[in-house]
């Protein structure tokens, strides 16, 4: 449901205020609120999931409460709530010699980058805030906004470790934008549209119509895209900007309490966005894998979410399995491996569509 539709619906609901500015504001605010809920719930679920996934991978139980109260709920379900409470009540420290304004600004910049991108993410055939005609381009653009926040955070902390983290993340994210973007160009070339819904609609008709299986170049492009976005979201094995054992905490070394948790909110929101783009761009979005079955509107949301969850799970799987790369190795992979392959992909897809399309 886009803002336009919501606005029209509100117009019919309150005819007295038809086409007034207030209704427009309401029509914009409602989806924003919903999105905020999505981001918050996403973070809560993902933090819990990450704890549990890591625990199961490491032969542990993870958070295991015995009931409501101080025990964080059954199976530790309330663990994230307890975490959030802890973070909210923690002292908010701003280092004396930090650049205060930028220090406070940085987490919000990162968060806004991740948050705003969700607007164009389709969760179902009708469940989307705004289906821009440049949707995928918009998401990429907003996704790279976060790096400004990371550099700000790293620089304003006035801490050498943070500076290292900030510089590393700048180099890393800017580099990995390129293969990720080039891989998405493959999608755009095939679908001939930038609209997210348009891309998904192109992939109708079962899993063999999905872009990932449409031709070998797109298959390769998916993996390049996925690995690049893992790097873009600073997840292991590409978490060098916050590399705990090297840089203490990287760009967020000096942050504490709620400000710190904003970094994590945005990290998880980012994961959601990039997984959604991956799911929509390559894995058929809200289409069912079997044509004609489970293809209703509600099932669409289910399919989209399960594809997103699967990709996020793979990211977690990476994180708890792999060691970390070194910064120069990371750059090598990006510039010497991914970039040439993605360029070849673009040509390949061009020829493929020329010959078979």
């Amino acid at each position: 449901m886009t803002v336009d539709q919501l606005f029209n619906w509100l117009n019919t609901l309150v005819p007295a205020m038809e086409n007034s500015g207030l209704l427009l504001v309401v029509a914009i605010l409602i989806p924003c609120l919903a999105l905020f809920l999505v981001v918050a719930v996403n973070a809560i679920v993902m933090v819990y999931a990450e704890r549990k996934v890591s625990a199961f991978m490491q032969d542990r139980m993870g958070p295991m409460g015995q009931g409501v109260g101080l025990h964080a709920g059954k199976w530790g379900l309330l663990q994230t709530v307890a975490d959030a409470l802890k973070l909210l009540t923690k002292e908010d420290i701003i280092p004396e010699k930090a650049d205060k304004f930028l220090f406070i600004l940085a987490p919000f910049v990162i968060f806004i980058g991740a948050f705003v991108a969700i607007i164009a993410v389709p969760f179902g055939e009708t469940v989307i805030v705004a289906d821009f005609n440049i949707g995928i381009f918009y998401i990429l653009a907003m996704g790279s906004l976060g790096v400004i926040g990371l550099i700000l955070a790293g620089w304003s902390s006035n801490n050498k470790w943070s500076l290292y983290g900030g510089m590393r993340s700048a180099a890393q994210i800017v580099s990995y934008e390129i293969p990720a973007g080039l891989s998405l160009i493959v999608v755009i070339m095939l679908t001939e549209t930038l609209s997210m819904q348009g891309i998904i609609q192109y992939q109708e008709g079962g899993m063999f119509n999905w872009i990932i299986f449409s031709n070998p170049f797109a298959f390769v492009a998916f993996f390049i895209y996925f690995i690049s976005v893992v790097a873009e979201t600073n997840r292991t094995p590409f978490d060098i900007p916050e590399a705990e054992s090297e840089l203490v905490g990287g760009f967020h070394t000096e942050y504490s309490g709620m400000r710190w948790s904003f970094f994590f909110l945005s990290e998880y929101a980012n994961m959601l966005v990039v997984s959604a783009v991956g799911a929509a761009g390559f894995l058929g979005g809200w289409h069912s894998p079997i044509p004609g079955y489970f293809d209703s509107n509600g099932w669409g949301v289910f399919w989209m979410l399960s594809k997103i969850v699967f990709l996020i799970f793979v990211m977690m799987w990476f994180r708890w399995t792999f060691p970390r790369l070194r910064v120069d190795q990371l750059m090598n992979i990006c510039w010497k491996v991914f970039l040439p392959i993605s360029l070849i992909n673009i040509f390949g897809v061009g020829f493929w569509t020329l010959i078979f399309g």
Partner: protein
Amino acid sequence: MGVVHGEEMVLNIGPQHPSTHGVLRLKVKTDGEIISEITPVIGYLHRCFEKHCENVTYDQVIPYTDRCDYLAAMANNFGYVVAVEELMELKVPEKVEYIRVIMAEFQRIASHLLALGVYGLDIGAFTPFLFMLRDRERILDMFEMTCGARLLYNYMWVGGVSHDLPKGFVETAFQFLDYFEPQIEEYNNLLTHNKIFVERTADIGVLPPEVAISYGVSGPNLRASGVQWDLRRNSPYSIYDKFEFDVPVGDGGKGTLGDCWDRYYVRMLEVRESVKILRQALAQMPKDGDVHQALPKKIRPPKGSIYSRTETPRGDLGFYIESDGSPIPSRVKMRSPAFTALAVLGELAGGWMMSDVISILGSLDIVLGEIDR
């Protein structure tokens, strides 16, 4: 390709840092990511071990040795009591020797497991660390079963050990070994041959054998440089001459001889050898015997000095003990393997990248308690 030189920055890694393995401070000169000079600054954990020793009796020194290398307390106990016994020319019963070897080898496995796991953690792999701690836990359980303590045991006494092995220890130990041996394969699959791990460790921090010897580097770090030197084999103390085991040396399997991966892998191989020794020792151990029978009433070594070495998980642990004939040692000097291993860091780590320094430091497997004493 031209190298761009920027302004150098002095960076302090530590004393509080997640991967300095204690309170170690590394004063590092960096040019961007490249480290040009590295100076370890130690002493943050100095607890006057040697001064304390001049004020307590010989047996009261043993708990202090626990606290030096707190990850291999049994091995430190062992090194000290062997030195004192050598000074006193005391012969201990065979059963005690077996118990000591069993404990020391279990300790070696436990210590290596921690070293390997933490090394994985330094490189960024979290899961192997917990896998290894899980198995180390079972060894600690066995120690607890034997002497009640899990980390600092004060188990080996001059002339004996504090407690006999409890009932069922041998069975538990065999059970553990049966369970543990296949686990080594799992670690290898998970971490040792992982492509990223190899990329991060092979060819990094190469320690040539001559440099290693000149710096007095010992134990797995020395063996990783291809020098076949193990005190258990080269000058056997206790009853190590009764067991069959190999001394694994580095072979540059994934890169250059003496790189970080070699140091890591030698430890992994040593764990296997310890299992071998343990199987033999547990099978051969005499069933009966009093572990207290050779305990001297009063420990009064004759006048003189001794330098005695044993092989701990970290390398040659030397105790230099000077006795003036009184029940209080005149001087106890602990030559700790981690001390020499850290000394070589400045030579090893210059010119590498920031991440490599952490990787090199981790591969040396230092324990600050032993360095600062």
